């Protein structure tokens, strides 16, 4: 951590947040929220939380902003302007937030100083992770090993939360049964007429395969550098979003159909829980990847853990990629897949 930098960034972030909530235009607020997330990503990097920064860069700054843009596109940019504000609600909100802030300020005197290596949070279980990750799992990136091995249950249910969120979006947007999401228009050429811009189309089409390759690299290299299933999956999903934006929504919906996406998401979760069940069948605990040494040729218990982490990361990436695509395509077309951003 570099404290001069930190103070500049934190101040910038507060200004950005204040402006984000006070701007009277939803599109502007979405853009500002994107810039806010960009600065957040910088802050995490500077504090040494590289994996969090990677996730924030891909999820917070990228996909969240795109989702906000999608809803502004589907609904309206308008924010109602009043001559007289709602004094009561504003006062109530201000009082509540001031009270919460006051209590937290009061409590902050008990917090350990920032950057204190002997802070209680750093002293109970995390030294174990740092000291034993190489000996236990042969994964140098401690975040990956904690995420997928030491706290594997946690991550499994996080993945199912993602799947549930995707299903919830589908259900909410088609609650009344009037929209079925299909049949998708059949065309001779998959590329619909629409926004004909050769430059943007060509650049996006030329870059998409490389970006997908990069996403696979992020997924596979998560053991040794920041990255892993969540980040790789989000970047894979974002390449589909890029194609949907620069070409046409139909291109993505026809090649990567809703059925495929849902099946892939479920397969992803199934890979995760299946790996755990495989360990159970081989006589160890659920998600204890050391059991995989019995079936992977030439693996010791340590490298088997590394391989098990790889397997569950692939599952996570599949689930996250499909759900991101499903959420985007449904939000931007209001559940009908007809016309996108």
């Amino acid at each position, binding site marked *: 951590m570099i404290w001069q930098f930190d103070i500049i960034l934190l101040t910038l972030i507060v200004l950005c947040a204040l402006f984000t909530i006070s701007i009277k235009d939803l599109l502007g607020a979405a853009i500002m929220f994107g810039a806010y997330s960009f600065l957040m990503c910088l802050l995490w990097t500077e504090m040494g939380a590289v994996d969090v920064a990677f996730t924030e860069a891909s999820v917070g700054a990228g996909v969240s902003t795109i989702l906000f843009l999608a809803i502004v596109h589907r609904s309206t940019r308008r924010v109602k302007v009043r001559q007289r504000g709602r004094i009561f609600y504003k006062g109530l909100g201000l009082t509540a937030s001031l009270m919460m802030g006051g209590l937290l300020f009061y409590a902050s005197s008990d917090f350990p100083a920032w950057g204190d290596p002997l802070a209680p949070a750093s002293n109970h279980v995390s030294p174990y992770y740092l000291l034993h990750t190489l000996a236990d799992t042969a994964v140098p990136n401690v975040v990956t090993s904690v995420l997928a091995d030491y706290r594997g249950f946690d991550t499994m249910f996080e993945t199912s939360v993602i799947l549930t969120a995707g299903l919830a979006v589908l259900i909410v947007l088609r609650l009344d049964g009037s929209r079925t999401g299909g049949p998708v228009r059949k065309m001779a050429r998959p590329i619909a007429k629409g926004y004909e*811009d050769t*430059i*943007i189309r060509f*650049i996006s089409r030329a*870059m998409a395969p490389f970006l997908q390759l990069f996403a696979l690299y992020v997924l596979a290299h998560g053991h040794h550098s920041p990255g892993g299933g969540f980040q790789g999956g989000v970047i894979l999903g974002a390449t589909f979003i890029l194609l949907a934006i620069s070409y046409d929504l139909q291109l993505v919906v026809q090649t990567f159909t809703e059925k495929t996406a849902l099946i892939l998401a479920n397969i992803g979760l199934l890979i995760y829980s299946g790996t755990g069940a495989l360990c159970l069948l081989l006589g160890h605990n659920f998600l204890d990847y050391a059991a995989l040494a019995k079936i992977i040729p030439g693996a010791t218990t340590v490298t088997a853990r590394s391989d098990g982490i790889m397997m569950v990361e692939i599952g996570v990436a599949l689930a996250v990629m499909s759900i991101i695509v499903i959420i985007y395509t449904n939000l931007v077309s209001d559940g009908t897949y007809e016309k996108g951003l």
Partner: protein
Amino acid sequence: MTALIARLLMVAGLFFFFATTIGILRFPDFYSRMHAAGKGDTLSSLLLLSGLALVNLAGAPLTFDNILVSLKIMAILVFIFLASPTATHAIIDAGYASGIEPWQKPGTSKEGDDDLAV
């Protein structure tokens, strides 16, 4: 020697970024600001990143890992070289589509600019 070239490149990049910022703040209308932002931003990023790739090479012995990192920085450079002008083009297009009129110097007539009026 490498460190010196790296510093020169980075200082040049900082200069162009400074000029970009001044252009963004001072130019009178959207199109001219976009001109500053598109060109200056891309150029300064390219200079800064190539400088950083050289810094990375200069700071440590020339190993395979080190060269790989520099190549990755060059990959970012190539990406920005392709993506940044495209983004600029898209923003300009959006501005034109939404009907922003180009700035006229006060006192000059608008005749002859009919093709720009939306």
